[in-house]
């Protein structure tokens, strides 16, 4: 047993050294985008740009650029062109679009559909319906001709904002955080492969036999957080707001009383299963669906 344990630990140690070296030399580890407290909101640090990495051997590598307002976009959102059709897109990581180059975000693709459009994308990973409402009230309401909010069940299950009004919750730079940032191996395992998320879900969800099999993907409409129900949150949006969704990812009964639009996937939305997010094709489909909606006289 001693020989085995010695060899096992040695193998792990040697693997860690080789992996750390390879990751450093080839710059394969992802990194956490720095955050700042911007008007009380937890925003990405304005002005930074670089390469966003996920997966093994740089499986997903894309260019990001954080604008002056803290959103991933090559344009600033400080002014609106009154001569063009103004469109606001609100959403989570799908709208934030780190999985493709920022130059090919849904907004830019939409602008390529018609030179008459200009689009601002208010997307933040992990955002939920509470964030969407606060974003809508802070920057969007009354400023744009069209507002589209991309929703899925994941967004509609949480009512506590994840980044709006959360500016004070940004952790200070601790020694542990510095070690984390300096270790390519730990960052690789955690950011590229979501190790912590997987471990968390293991302890949160527990064994399958402890779960109630009937509760899969159900949304409890009575779920209350701070006495707010999902219907009350929906009432905060104007009737002109269009909820965009992908078939199979949302309980459509929640949005059937509001304007809604299904993303029409005409080209493969996911290439090579790079996590659950859309690749460029998915964004093209989304942009085309919105374009078709705007052009349609029916709405």
């Amino acid at each position, binding site marked *: *047993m001693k020989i085995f344990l010695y*060899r096992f630990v040695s193998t792990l140690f040697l*693997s860690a050294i080789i992996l750390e070296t390879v990751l450093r030399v080839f710059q394969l580890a992802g990194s956490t985008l720095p955050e700042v407290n911007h008007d009380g909101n937890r925003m990405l640090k304005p002005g930074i740009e670089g390469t966003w990495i996920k997966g*093994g051997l740089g499986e997903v590598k894309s260019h990001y650029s954080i604008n002056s307002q803290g959103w991933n976009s090559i344009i600033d959102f400080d002014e609106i062109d009154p001569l063009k059709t103004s469109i606001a897109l609100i959403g989570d990581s799908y709208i934030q679009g780190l999985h493709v180059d920022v130059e090919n975000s849904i907004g830019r693709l939409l602008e390529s559909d018609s030179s008459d459009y200009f689009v601002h994308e208010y997307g933040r990973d992990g955002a939920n319906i509470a964030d969407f409402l606060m974003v809508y009230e802070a920057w969007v309401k009354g400023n744009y001709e069209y507002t589209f909010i991309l929703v899925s069940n994941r967004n509609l299950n949480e009512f506590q904002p994840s980044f709006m009004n959360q500016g004070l919750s940004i952790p200070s730079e601790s020694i542990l955080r510095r070690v984390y940032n300096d270790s390519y191996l730990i960052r690789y395992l955690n950011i590229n492969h979501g190790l912590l998320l997987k471990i968390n879900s293991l302890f949160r969800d527990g064994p399958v*036999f402890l779960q109630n099999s009937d509760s899969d993907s159900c949304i409890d409409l009575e779920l209350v957080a701070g006495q707010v129900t999902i219907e009350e949150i929906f009432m905060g949006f104007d009737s002109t707001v269009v909820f965009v969704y992908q078939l199979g990812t949302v309980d459509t009964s929640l949005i059937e009383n509001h304007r809604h639009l299904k993303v029409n996937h005409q080209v493969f939305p996911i290439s*090579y299963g790079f996590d659950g997010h859309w690749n460029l094709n998915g964004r093209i489909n989304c942009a085309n669906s919105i374009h078709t909606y705007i052009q349609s006289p029916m709405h």
Partner: protein
Amino acid sequence: MLFNSIEFGFFLPIIFMLYWFTNRDLKLQNSLLLLASYFFYGWWDWRFLSLIIASTLIDYSIGLGLRRFKSRRSKKMLLSTSIIVNIGLLGFFKYFNFFIDSFSGAFTFFGQSMDEFTLKIVLPVGISFYTFQTLSYTIDVYKSKLEPTKDFLSFAAFVAFFPQLVAGPIERASNLLPQMQKKRRLKPLNAAEGVRLILWGLFKKIVIADNLAPAVNDIFTNYNLYTSEVLVLGVVFFAFQIYCDFSGYSDIARGIAKLLGFELMVNFNFPYFSRSIGEFWRKWHISLSTWFRDYLYIPIGGSKVGKSKGIRNVFIIFLVSGFWHGANWTFIIWGGIHALLFVPSYISGNNRKYLNSITSNRLLLPKFGDFVRILCVFILVTFSWIFFRSESVSMAIEYIHGIFQFSISPGPYLNPYDNQLLVQELLLVSFLVIIEYLLITRTISLTPKLKSIDLVIDAVLVVMILLKTPVSNNLSFIYFQF
């Protein structure tokens, strides 16, 4: 619980430590093994544990009954009970809807609808594997090839042994049960070999199969949009995907068993280097093909009943083997194709040819003739995989039709995967072929010798696995569905 999941990463070290901690008491150790195995299976769905427990209880009792009763008639009745229960469970969970669907067409013709009889049945993971394992026990006891065991704990641990419970190798009681009943020791060389097998299995599963899976899924889902060369690429990739997926699982199972002091049978022996279909089936899923040989082919007469009945027997064994894989006509046709490919060598008496290794002549490269035969067998086997992978017979036919269109112009949109990924995948497949060839020629060996270089080899395997793990890898093993 999957071998390549995070939960198994916690499960195995804990069980490993507890297992060897309880090494002084065999009963305690086997109890731990049994509980661990039930926990492993119950993680997926605890309700189906009842099937394993029922199967265990019934076959254990029947085994004892076969010893107690002396009359041939009583013994036959007991064996029939075991067969009916095990095949009945398998038939209900796996094939009920298939038969309903298959016969519904005929009933609809007579104005009757059978849709109401179709049930929402969940297929219990690994049911095809453990029912065959317990069946082999009762058949062997019936044939007096094996003494029935009185040790219920060992028997239950044998049926539920977690390393091979859900996807084999399908172990024989004569091999595994005696190992359950004697004290195990952790030998350094065996443990090092176990770790190497686990890493090699994970390499095949994660680095090769999981990286080929998206391309295969994409091409088989959208086969009507792709050109001939992409369709060929899709099925070739699938040939390597299924091999690496399944043989990878078997290697991991054998490796874990070694860590626990057990020896499981080799399930794959470089099948894509076969020179005939007969040789392929002696090297592919060996535990299943030998099971069918011993418990179906030989009892119905095998090859000793004349040529025409022998041919019938060949078709029976291949069709049943296909049907074992799944309740779909595609698997039956897949089995039928292999029967058709096997029959010529059976008629000419060449089916037992090529029992030696391709490099038994100690040449670094195979002879030209052998090389051509290997290539031909690979092409034929790969062709049959189209049916195995397709969701329906009509899809398989359309896929084949697409290949023979010989179209090379781009489809309605550009090829969605970029060339860099394609090159990576081709390199991975080439790497596998070279390594396997070197293993056959014994230029290299998977067996470690407890030297420092072995630590480096293991570390490099760990690094490659971690570097090539896809973001959302397809965790499940293909053979879990069977």
